[in-house]
């Protein structure tokens, strides 16, 4: 793990959710390691180091927290592109969404998501859920090896 590469890419269009999520991660000293993409297109540009992110430091995040309902390119499309990209296909991805729709669950798992978490409405539950996700994926989980080619 390289210290200058953000551990978590949060793809989330709603600024309230971004604020609450970061608030939750802050409480575990993980906030400085979060990069936010405001839609699917931005998320893919970040991962591929394209567009606005063409000059970013090389390296992949420990985990991508992916909202489903986003403008331009939704979460499921992003997941499909990641899994279809040889350079990204081993990237850990967790869906973090308000949707309990069965169809969303099925599609996500079919596309090879690593976890699916419904955002709890209750704030303390939300804090707990995000905290555990951050700790697990950024600190506990072992990343896939770099240089996937």
């Amino acid at each position, binding site marked *: 793990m390289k210290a200058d590469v953000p551990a978590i890419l949060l793809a989330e269009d709603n600024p*309230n959710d971004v604020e609450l999520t970061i*608030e939750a991660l802050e409480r575990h000293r993980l906030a400085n390691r979060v990069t936010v993409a405001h839609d699917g297109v931005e998320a893919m540009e970040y991962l591929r180091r394209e567009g606005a992110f063409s000059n970013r430091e090389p390296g992949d995040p420990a985990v991508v927290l992916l909202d489903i309902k986003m403008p331009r390119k939704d979460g499921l499309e992003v997941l499909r592109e990641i899994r279809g990209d040889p350079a990204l296909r081993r990237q850990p991805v967790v869906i973090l969404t*308000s949707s*309990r729709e069965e169809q969303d669950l099925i599609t996500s798992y079919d596309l090879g998501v690593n976890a699916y978490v419904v955002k709890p409405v*209750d*704030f303390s539950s*939300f804090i707990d859920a995000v905290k555990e996700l951050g700790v697990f994926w950024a600190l506990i989980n072992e990343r896939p090896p770099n240089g996937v080619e």
Partner: protein
Amino acid sequence: MLAVLIAAAGYFIWRQQAQSIEQQADRTLTAVGQLKAKQITSWLGERRGDAAILRADPLVATAAADLLAGRRTAAASADLQTLLDAFRRTYSYVVVVMTTPGGRVLLRAPQAAPALLDEQTTALVAKATATGVVQSSDLHLDGAGRTRIDFVAPILSPQGGVPAIAAVTLSADPGSFLFPLVQTWPSPSRSGETLLVERRGGQVLYLNDLRFRKGTALKLAVPANAANLPAAMAVRGRRGVVQGLDYRGVPVLAALQHVPGTPWYLVAKEDTNDVLGPIRTQAWMTAAVALVLVALAGVGTLLFWRVRESQVSAEIRESEEKFRRFFELTADLVVIADIEGNFREVNSAWAKTLGYSKEELLGRPYLELVHPEDKERTEQVIAEKLKRGDTVLSFENRYLRKDGSSVWLDWTSQPQVAEGYTFAIARDITERRRADEVLRDSEAALRAILDATPFPIALVDARDDVIDYWSRSALTLFGHTAPTAAEWYEIAYPDPEYRQAVIHRWKPLLDKARRSGQALNTGEYRIACRDGSERICELYVTFLADRLVVTFNDITARKHAEEELRDSEERLRFLIDQTPTVNWTLDADLRFTLSRGAGLQTLGLGPDKVLGMYVGDFLGGSGPQAELGVAMHRRALAGESFAYEQPIGDLVFDIILGPLRDADDALIGVIGVAYDATARKQADEARRAAERKVTKLNAELEQRVLDRTAQLDAANKELEAFAYSVSHDLRAPLRHISGFSALLAERLGDSLDERSRHYVDTISRSVRDMGVLIDDLLLFSRTGRAELRIASVDMDEVLREALEPLKLETSEREIEWAIGPLPRVVGDQALLRQVWANLLGNAVKYTRGRAPAYIEVGARHAGGADKDIFWVRDNGVGFDMQYAHKLFGVFQRLHDSSEFEGTGIGLANVQRIINRLGGRVWAEGEVDHGATFSFSLPRRKETPS
């Protein structure tokens, strides 16, 4: 003295011997004469018998009558010629001639015989035909100088009565049989002969050839008053043995005899020298011996006797030798039998005829050789005639040959009672008997032929109505016959009225048949059989002279067949006339030969109105209807059978056509049936139109269903999109409210007073409740839309799945669970889990205050076991039944949410699920006394999905 004594003794001895020899000669002559006379009588009797057979033969009579009347002359003539030829051959006649009573020759055998009768025979024919009695002629010479004797048989007309219509003259040659019979001499003799003589005027006529003078038959005649001529003595009436001079002037000893039934006399004679020769020789020898005795005076009497004896026996031996030689030469069987009936002497003819040697026969009882079937008759004749000394003539019986076959013999036997002997002569008549049998057999064959014909035949004597003969088939057919016509009427026509009618009809027909002489069909008669049944016969009658031949032709089967045919035709006619079709036949020119049937009314026609009309004209003469009809009828006329539709005017007929054939299978016309199918065709058309309409409606309906389904699908899609928005977008602001109010409370920290903290908590709780509400609403929406996954479901397992999280949640509470076994059901497993989770969750929730809480789950069958009912019962707060109907409404609650949390959607969801599965939900309860929630599910077959 000795010489005198010797001479006297010698004379005495000679005298005795001479007498003995004379007596022996007398007896022999007498016996010969009697035998010959009987044999002649017998021969004549046979010839008259021949003639009598012809006289009595109805076939001859019929044929002769036909011939004379000019009917069937060729056939009659051929028949008669065959008969005359056969007769001549069989009985060895020289000539057999059939003549008219006037002596005109009709037929003769052989063909070479003279075509004219001589005067004498013509007279005899006239006498025979006039009297109807068989006549015989004298022995006479025919035109060629040959000796003949004729027998004339009158041929009576078939009706009988004199005068006869014809005569048959049988001309025999006496030289071939009669004369040899007369001349043969049964004992050995140098001079023995028999003469047959007859008185003609004052003359004695010698009838047969003489032994010592040839060519005398019927030529030599001497005066009847010649004193010493034995023949003359015989015609003058002398009988017995006489001495005289014969035609040669030689002294003879003769036995005189009349032949009974004839003008003939028989003379059996032998020269006196031959008879008395031994006596003279003896006299000479006796004298010589006496002289020698006297002269020598020393020759002993004994020696004399010895010489004498040997000499006498030598003479006798010689005489016997001659007798024996003749005895052996004759073809007749000659026998001498003793009183016990044993053979004592037989000639060699016996051995030739019977095959036994003389030694085998002698001493044997002759009855042993008599054919067993003739033994009784023979014994009768022995007892009644021979034992009493009566002569037996023309007795016929059979003797067995050594090889087992038999011989017919004709006996003439002369018993000599006093001496205990019987002299007998027999002739082999086997051939003659065989000829008789042939004749009898031919009659039997005729009978057999009649019996073999299947037509019963009766022969009736028309004079007395006696039925002489019924053929066997009569008995077979009728089961009974009758001996007279009257009795036959009784049994054959038991109904008196019918019998009278039959007789009334029958009599004039018989007269007609008799007049015509032809076979006549007298019509049909119903004849009663023995078994009670009835035969219908045609009776043919023919007269043969006085004989009526009735032939029965059984036509019962034919009559019955005719009746059946008539009945069957009546039935067919009825059917043809009454069926509601048109029925017709056409000839080969396609013209109507029949048109009938009730269906004709449809065409406005009556039966057979169009006979003779051409079918094309019937169909309008021209145009497509006529062309079609003619073409189809031509097809049928070519041999095809088929059905087609024929329009006639405005009507349409279903027509079936077929060919008509004659007995030889040749095509001679067409037969057809037509049925008016117009109404049916119209109905068919209407039905087809209706079907088209229904099909169109169905198609429209289907399209409408498709349209509606598409609309429904679209609505569902919209609803889904809405639900998605709700779940996602509605929840986000809630989360933000919750999050930021919590962050606000944190920032304010200890500076937050009690009241402010309460506000924040309330915001937080409200947000949570709304989240639950949104989740429940989404779930409720999904249960209404989600596709059912119907399968067999293990309710025990589903219940366990729903119960497990509840038990975890309520681990601190005191709850008694009573879970009964549940049946398998057919349903959607996920939805049923929701049902149980809801009901059990409610039970847990509303028993919160109870310690212990009691929750029971069970199931039972109901509704004739076609559904299962499940229930959850608790001892919780219960409810007021007054509001029971509100339990299952959305957002309906019976309790304060501060008391029992909840959205009021759970039971609505349960009801929606159970209804979708075809069941029903209901609840019973009482405030503070618990509640029971029940639902039913129909039992149904698991449908594979």
